[in-house]
């Protein structure tokens, strides 16, 4: 985005683009922090989950499919690994290696999104909607916002993949563009690890879940 030559020296020694991405991520921390706090506050307030359309009390442990979510979490973590390889390749000027790795990242990102779409439809069918409970509202908006971040990241990486053929990614500037995208991608991953922990895993802490909702009924 910068109109100045990317290699121009800066007072801090950090490139403009990298610095602005760090600042954006700092701001995004507050963004996700607010969403996650909302979820946790309501979780503490209403430990028993939600009531579905038929009026049955539903418990979160029965709703979640922790195996699937663990799998998608693993996939996202691996995509970060590939992203690191892609950034490193670009710094070394190995465009072919960059393309391979970034395709991997894109594919893993799409798998993660697919899992989320599946999860959403599945939960919706089980009776958790955005309208019928506070849990539904906080859960869908929080994870949906994260999914949107992943989707934007995938779109960005697809563009970078194509630009690697047009010559726009040559030299220091290109490596910087990839690195900035990498920062974003890693951040989105880290946020997911937090969400996976405080939204999913804590429901399985102890026999009654951390919120003390009592034993799952069905």
């Amino acid at each position, binding site marked *: *985005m*910068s*109109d*100045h*030559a990317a290699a121009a020296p*800066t*007072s*801090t020694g*950090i490139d*403009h683009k990298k*610095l*602005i991405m760090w*600042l*954006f991520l*700092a*701001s*995004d921390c*507050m*963004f996700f*922090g*607010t*969403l996650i706090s*909302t979820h946790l*506050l*309501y979780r503490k*307030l*209403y430990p028993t989950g939600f009531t579905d359309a038929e009026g049955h009390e539903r418990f979160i442990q029965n709703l979640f499919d922790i195996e699937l979510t663990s799998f998608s979490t693993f996939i996202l973590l691996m995509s970060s690994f590939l992203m690191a390889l892609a950034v490193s390749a670009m710094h070394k000027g190995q465009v072919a290696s960059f393309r391979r790795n970034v395709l991997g990242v894109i594919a893993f990102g799409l798998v993660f999104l697919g899992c989320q779409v599946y999860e959403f439809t599945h939960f919706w069918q089980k009776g958790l909607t*955005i*309208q*019928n*409970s*506070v849990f*539904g*509202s*906080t859960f869908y*908006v929080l994870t949906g*916002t994260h999914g949107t971040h992943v989707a934007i990241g995938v779109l960005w990486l697809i*563009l970078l993949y194509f630009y690697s053929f*047009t010559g*726009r990614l040559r030299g220091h500037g290109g490596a910087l563009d990839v690195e900035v995208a990498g920062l974003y991608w890693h951040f989105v991953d880290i946020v997911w690890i937090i969400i996976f922990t405080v939204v999913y895993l804590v429901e399985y802490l102890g026999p009654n879940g951390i919120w003390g909702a009592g034993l799952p009924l069905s």
Partner: protein
Amino acid sequence: MAHAAHHAPVADKTELPPERSDIGLLRPDRTTGLLDWLTTVDHKKIGILYGAFAMLFFLLGGVEALAIRTQLAAPENAFISARTYNQMFTMHGTTMIFLGVMPLSAAFFNFLVPLQIGARDVAFPRLNAFSLWTFVFGALALNASWVFEVGHLAGWFRDFAWYQSLTYTDFAPANGWFSYAPLSGTFGQADAALHAPRFTGVGTDFWIIGIQILGVASLAASFNFIVTILNMRAPGMTMMRLPVFTWMTLVTAFLIIFAFPAITVALIQLMFDRTFGANFFNPTNGGQPILWQHLFWIFGHPEVYILVLPAMGIVSEILPTFSKKPLFGYPIIVFSGAVIGFLGFAVWSHHMFTTGLGPIPTAAFSLLTMAIAVPTGVKIFNWIGTIWGGRVRFTPPMVLSLGFIWMFMLGGFSGIMHSAAPADAQQQDTYFVVAHFHYVLVGGVLLGLMAGLYFWFPKIFGRMPNATVAYVASGLVIFGFNMAFGPMHYLGLAGQPRRTHTYQAGYGWEDWNLVATIGAFVLGIGVFLAFANLAWTAFRGRRCESDPWDARTLEWSLPSPVPAYNFAQTPVVATRDAWFAHKHGGPKVGALDDGGPAGVHMPSQSWMPLLASAGFLIVGLAVPMMAMGIPHAGWAVVSGLGVLFLGIWLWALEGPGGYQLVTPAATPSPAPAPAEAAR
């Protein structure tokens, strides 16, 4: 100064052939006139545009304020209806904060920061233009609600099916600038169309999307300014040599990037409640309206400092100049600014003392609020210390700055009164609070910004505002302001609540309300006169030299108006207040050998920020229209988002661009121009 000749005319911008981007786009480098202003990426022009729009919206907010005061001039007045009154105070607050003060501060950030740090532009010039246009379009979207409201009152829509099926007929927002849920949200169960019953109509939707768009503008600008300040300082310009205004800009920008996400999320949640029947703040389904208050004030209290810190920075530049003395205790002023920034995030619940927080949080927030008075007091002490032992010249900016200190101090005292939660239980939501924050925001911020306008106007346009008119305007503003808001202290203690469109006779409020109304009109005339003086000066004013005030910081070393490339050669700084030291026997300002015959590299202009921002305008209009049930408005939302993404994509494809601008031969600076202040 070095530049005898001013910057080369636009047609001579470049000797190189125009550059085309990957997909053949040509960047509008050779444009003039209106096209130049629409596509500019020059931080100075963007700053001027910010200032012009901010002053227009400021006057609009002022008209709204006068409508409020006219209605309250007499008990049971029927000048405007209850609904209109509520819309007026909602839009007055929202306009003044988001469309008046913040953009006016941004105008100063834009114009001054690169000049003060010795840079040729901001780090991301096109992002800067994007911030400007997003602000403008967000403001237009928000104010478009008035058009619909007028149409509603005039009956334009009577024949439309969507209008006939509306349950709620408020078109301009009427929730207050804080839009507390559930008044702004929903209650009860959502129907099949995912709509839960609510208390207000599309006015609230206009407000939500408008604030959301303005938030994007503020965030983008803040990222840009932090990078600029951290990364683009001239050699020798260490952090502890930064002019205080730049420091306060940095703190403000950090406050924005950490505070705005909270309101962004809160607005998303409220929008989901209203649009999709979610339950974030819907009390029927377990949502907690109090959460909105927490999220709003985690943003809202830092926002207060976002408004006031730039004005403090401005005054911290003006006082040393007209006392001919460096700022007293520069490091402490800087650190107290940073401390205010930190503590600003730890006092939000003092807006909620009456919500039943419980004794421990109430006590904690009381003490923290008292604590924040310390760094604020330190600033006042240091300003007085700056004057002490100096030689004070009473120019218009100095008179306004002294007014700032005085009024801000009074506002600080009533602030200390609020910090005591038990006393606040009586004052919360009364005119006492209205008096308090207007002393801070009008007596403080507005006077500070006006001082800044009169101080830097000669630099911006190379013309000196008429001093007599400026004194008269300042006098009217200060007198009218005190007449309008001084009595409100009494009214609040005598029990008049805020946000009430009328009151009965017999409560002892009649006389002082009338006085306040007359004062408000005097204030209005004063502000109008001050702005009119500036507007006239911009086109017709007397030309003046480049450093008329014998000022201290780098921007005054440049010709007025400042050439497009700012510094023909990047300055090298050896001390704080480098330009003053340079003129008065201290270390000289050096120069890098980077101007030269090859010229200065300039960023190319661009249509893309405007295009991307226009997407926001479409979204900002279409989302409320969708809420009204206007057919096909949903497609307009989609197309608006499409325009936004198209703008960003073409922006990325435009390529870096840029051209060389040849500067006049740079020679080391001769002796300083004789300082002569306008009296």
